[in-house]
């Protein structure tokens, strides 16, 4: 027998003449994912707007297909550009969820890799390595961070080209099976796309992740503090507000990630402070949750 798949019936198919977009949207649970994203990530209004637009496009696409309007398999590969710590991985995770809910990928998992996961050091190692990664990501989303490192024009015998070739093939031929998201700094991605036009033409959605403002970074820090059951004293809050613009000017600033690091170090100092106390036999709940100004002030940011 040639064809048993139940969805493909023979002969002319009767198409419905209406589509319940509202109902389909409710059933897909996409709203819940968007709300989760709102809770998880402060600000990023333009990014969230783009995600909403993509979700809408995919829903309408589904509606069109249900009425037999030929749309062709949509290209879903994306590029996420922006500085470190701007929420690219988190958005990618939610994107995978949305794609799964709308039926564009089967499993909805996210595999996050960098050049080292794809490219081997010796001849013949790259293809199997890349294939192994692609196999793991099949049915979900493959997130390649700092994708431009795949391409090293200065090295003639770089094996990255092999990985690129395989990736391009899969991105073209197995669009139903895998969505690829390339991520990295905006300017370097631009250079990368110029030298690898194959990638640019296969990418449907470019999303730019802006840096956070001082105010947004403060909210992010506050969210993190709350989530970990700590409290900043009013003085500590003031110090943190002062800390943010100083840190932003320093090298290796990484937006939300820098805030997390700053808080992690403050927690360390708090623990140290508590341990050094003479009356450490009866610590209160208050003691254990409070981060004081001094816990932040010892940062090297204030020493320069």
């Amino acid at each position: 027998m040639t064809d048993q798949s139940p969805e493909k019936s023979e002969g002319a198919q009767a198409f419905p003449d209406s589509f319940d977009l509202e109902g389909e949207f409710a059933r897909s649970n996409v709203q819940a994912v968007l709300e989760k994203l709102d809770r998880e990530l402060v600000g990023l209004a333009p990014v969230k707007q783009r995600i909403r637009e993509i979700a809408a496009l995919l829903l309408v696409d589904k509606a069109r297909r249900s009425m037999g309007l030929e749309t062709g398999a949509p290209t879903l590969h994306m590029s996420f550009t922006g500085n470190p710590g701007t929420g690219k991985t988190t958005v990618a995770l939610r994107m995978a969820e949305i794609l799964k809910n709308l039926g564009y990928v089967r499993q909805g998992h996210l595999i996050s890799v960098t050049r080292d996961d794809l490219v081997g050091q010796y001849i013949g190692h790259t293809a199997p390595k890349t294939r192994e990664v692609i196999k793991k990501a099949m049915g979900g989303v493959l997130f390649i961070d700092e994708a431009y490192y795949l391409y090293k024009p200065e090295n003639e015998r770089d094996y990255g080209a092999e990985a690129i070739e395989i990736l391009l093939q899969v991105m073209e031929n197995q669009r139903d099976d895998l969505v690829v998201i390339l991520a990295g700094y905006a300017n370097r991605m631009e250079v990368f796309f110029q030298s690898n036009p194959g990638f640019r033409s296969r990418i449907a959605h470019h999303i730019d992740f802006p840096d956070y403002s001082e105010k947004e970074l403060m909210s992010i820090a506050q969210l993190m503090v709350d989530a970990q059951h700590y409290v900043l004293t009013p003085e500590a809050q003031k110090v943190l507000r002062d800390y943010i613009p100083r840190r932003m000017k320093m090298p290796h600033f990484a937006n939300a990630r820098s805030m997390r690091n700053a808080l992690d170090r403050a927690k360390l100092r708090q623990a140290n402070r508590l341990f050094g106390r003479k009356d450490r036999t009866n610590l209160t709940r208050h003691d254990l949750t409070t981060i004081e100004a001094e816990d932040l002030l010892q940062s090297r940011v204030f020493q320069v």
Partner: protein
Amino acid sequence: MHENPRNMTQGQFSFLPPLTDDQIKAQIAYAIKQGFAVSVEFTDDPHPRNTYWEMWCQPMFDTKDPAAVMLEVNECRKTWGANHYIKVQAFDNARWRESVAMSFIVNRPKYEPGLALARQEGPGRSIHYTVHSYATDKPRGERYK
């Protein structure tokens, strides 16, 4: 008289029209759902007791999606498809089975010469039989040309 046109009917689905890629994927999805490890093997010698076909890759123990297996099937077809048999196998490691659970052909060589039967007569009308694959008359690489 009616005669089956195929001369190599190993595997679960050899009497059906060749499986489409979607049908192959559906079988692989079933295997993955059962917790089987799927593998791809190829050979140019269809002898019924040729147990050890070449392994195209390791059995895929942790694969979640049929497209991953399909990728290997297609790679194997690209390299060997013109003149080799390729089969997909699923291995079940559950106690009391610990063996192959599924096996079906996903690629055939363009020309299939089949097998010959050689008879060696012995005393008392007894005959010793040898089943012999025509393809193996030539060295590897020159078969099925």
